[in-house]
């Protein structure tokens, strides 16, 4: 294939060539970054929470009266007994916050009482000995809380944290050699020590913000129900009975006492709803990016078809002459494919640089990772294939131009 004559011909429609190359470059730059963002968001959304999501739901109960802590304590214990007695309920536990909720309590975790800087940060879940069975989270080492260890406290009381259960990732962060069980750690922001009596399998924290990335799987379970102005109840339904349990549980609570407020909109939420709420913005972003990428690729393909069609129309006479002089249909087809490939290669080279440039700028502006070169490579291949596919129809039409055209005057 002769490239020189193609280049010579391109010089006659410089502006068009530059524009289509520019369009390919911009499309590549945007699509690469968009796909990279989509992949990051999907990865984030696919993170496991470590709990039995299919059977779990939560109830938020606000106390309607300003009752004293003793009364709240007694009410919570009565509520829990009522919930656990329901036929559709496997287990229930009180908790101040839970994985993916977004808001909650997090403390700095230290290994020494006098340590000035934190070792790491972790979610603090106040619950009781039913927490693990309700969450459906396995212990991988040590033991669960006993009923006698489980207590109650108000938010500003000294933390009831002589024994704690911590998540696998927190254990690994504190003792990378795997010896966290039985060790003393400091989770109260003060000088009171806590003994690690158990380590759970993966358990996600309540924090979902990007700042909390390094701490997303750090969780400390404290054996105390928190006596606050409200509480959450985690309820695990028996398999297949989630709907029934979600109907029964609020009724059972109101039967215990009417002096509570359970919001009609989000007072009772399945864990699926919790997950959807936590990752809604990520999903929206991924969908938007996908739509924009698809439309962009479609427009660029259509642009290539349109532009090449014009060029074919413009050059019918020349094509006829070439055919009359002995060029085969395949020669003509190859001519247009090669011309488009050359433009495409020029475009993707500029585009690859642009894609990396945009990513570098985004990294400086937003909390974002570096674009992996695999995405750029995939984008380059995709755009070249798309370009060749788009040019195929006009090029085929060109190859069907009859040699007789050479003799026509207009």
């Amino acid at each position, binding site marked *: 294939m002769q490239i020189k004559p193609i280049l010579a011909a391109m010089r006659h*429609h410089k*502006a*068009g060539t530059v*524009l*289509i190359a*520019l*369009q390919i470059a*911009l*499309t590549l*730059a*945007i699509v690469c970054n968009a796909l990279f*963002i989509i992949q990051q968001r999907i990865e984030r959304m696919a993170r496991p929470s470590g709990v039995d999501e299919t059977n779990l739901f939560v109830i938020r109960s*606000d106390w*309607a*009266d*300003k009752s004293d*802590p003793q009364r709240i304590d007694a009410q919570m214990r009565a509520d829990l007994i009522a919930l656990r007695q329901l036929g559709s309920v496997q287990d229930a536990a009180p908790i101040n916050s839970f994985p993916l909720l977004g808001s909650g*309590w997090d*403390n*700095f975790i230290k290994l020494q009482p006098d340590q*000035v*800087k*934190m070792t790491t940060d972790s979610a603090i879940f106040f619950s009781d000995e039913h927490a693990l069975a309700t969450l459906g989270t396995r212990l991988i080492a040590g033991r669960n809380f006993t009923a006698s260890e489980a207590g109650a406290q*108000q*938010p*500003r009381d*000294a*933390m009831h944290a002589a024994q704690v259960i911590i998540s696998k990732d927190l254990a690994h962060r504190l003792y990378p050699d795997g010896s966290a069980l039985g060790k003393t750690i400091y989770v*109260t*922001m*003060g000088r009171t020590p806590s003994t690690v009596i158990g380590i759970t399998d993966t358990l996600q924290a309540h924090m979902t913000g990007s700042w909390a990335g390094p701490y997303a799987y750090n969780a400390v379970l404290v054996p105390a129900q928190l*006596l*606050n*102005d409200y509480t959450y109840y985690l309820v695990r339904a028996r398999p297949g009975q989630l709907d029934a349990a979600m109907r029964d549980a609020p009724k059972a609570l109101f039967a215990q006492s009417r002096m509570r*407020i359970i919001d009609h909109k989000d007072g009772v939420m399945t864990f699926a709803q919790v997950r959807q709420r936590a990752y*809604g*913005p990520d999903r*929206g*972003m991924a969908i*938007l*990016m996908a739509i*924009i990428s698809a*439309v*962009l690729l479609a*427009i*660029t393909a*259509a*642009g290539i078809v*349109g*532009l090449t069609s*014009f*060029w074919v*129309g*413009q050059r019918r006479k020349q094509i006829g002459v070439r055919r009359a002089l002995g060029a085969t249909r395949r020669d003509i087809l190859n001519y247009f494919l090669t011309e488009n490939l050359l433009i495409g290669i020029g475009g993707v080279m500029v585009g690859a640089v642009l894609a990396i440039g945009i990513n570098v700028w*985004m990294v400086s*502006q*937003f*909390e974002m990772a570096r674009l992996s070169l695999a995405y750029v490579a995939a984008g380059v291949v995709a755009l070249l294939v798309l370009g060749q596919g788009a040019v195929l129809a006009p090029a085929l039409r060109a190859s069907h131009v009859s040699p007789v055209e050479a003799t026509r*005057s*207009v």
Partner: protein
Amino acid sequence: MFGYYLDLALRSLRRNKALTVLMVLAIALGIGASMTTLTVLHVLSGDPLPGRSDTLYYPQIDPRDDSGQMPGEEPPEQVTLIDGLNLLHAKRADRQALMTGGYVPVQSDSAVVDPFYVEARFTTADFFPMFGAPFRYGRGWNAFDDETRARDVVINGELNGRLFGGADSVGRTLRIADTRFRIVGVLDDWAPNPHFYDLNTGSFGRTEQVFVPLQTAMGLKLERHGSNDCWGKGAGGVGRIYPGESCVWLQFWVQLDSAAKVAAYEQFLVHYSQEQKALGRFVRPPNVRLRNVMQWLAHEKVVPDDVRLQTGLAFGFLLVCLVNTIGLMLAKFMRRAADLGVRRALGASKRSLFAQLLVESGVVGIVGGVGGLLLAGLGLWAVRQRPSSYAALAHLDGSMLLVTFALALGSTLVAGMLPAWRACQVPPALQLKSN
């Protein structure tokens, strides 16, 4: 002449229907996407109190010790109760208010309605005149009521509608957490966006329904709602009892009417810090900030990253659409070089050729622009259906409508000008010769 050019343009556009549709659609999609995202960005980065915001300042001082439990160079984003009250009582600004968020159960006095929780603001007297909160009935309380812990309450129009059917409820009773309060004022619709005075309770679409004097609320231990950061011995904790002495959890705002007063107030904050250090309360050298509303919002980065990212992406998309249209227009005009050559040879000036071509690209641009406007409306409707906190704010206002038209017109002219100019450069003789 314009009518004739328009006729020519329409004929030409009709000749390549698919291409015309592609060009119009590309422009419409590009403009629709960029206007949707730009409108959201515009709404989110707007001034919450136009005309007032440049005299409102947010003083920050640094009461932290050296325990390193709350690291960072910037002073804390809120104040402790002691510092807040000290600064409030110093009255060094034209107006000042100390505040925090709350979450309280309310009930009308008749008690026929079950209690329900509403968002509250515990604040001091200057809050209303300083932020220009408009009253429908009555007025706010005064500084004397603050100190005497008066059981006065201001409610907003929404709560007034819900409990009193929108009637003038001044003087009537509202029960908050089983305590009787006297309603002294009812606010008109008022919801500054962003919720600049306390970004901890959500930046957008938030509004309190109940306003209670801060010291009254604290005396009754009403439930607080917001963030607190502690250092040293102050343990964390939110809820029934308020955070300790070494915790920041209140917002303090001042009004300073002139540049001289701003400088003087900053000086005052430095002096205050030095004084507190001499008293042994502060450990660090004076570390103060005094930002006005817009500076504070910029510092706090209230516009979500995703929104800025989407806007950038949409404009990139528009750029590709424009390049696409320029390329296609150019190819189309060049294809007609022969016609144009004939017109030139018959005496048409470059200028009239240019005008003719510009009319053609203008038609594409205007139709695309109108389509873009419709798509932007659709896009904003889609944004409003999303569960984000700012969803309800996404509306096209007058200024954004103008920007849309300018954008549509500008981008089409750019997309039309270049190809038209290029096509006019055709020398007449050459075109006549070639065929």
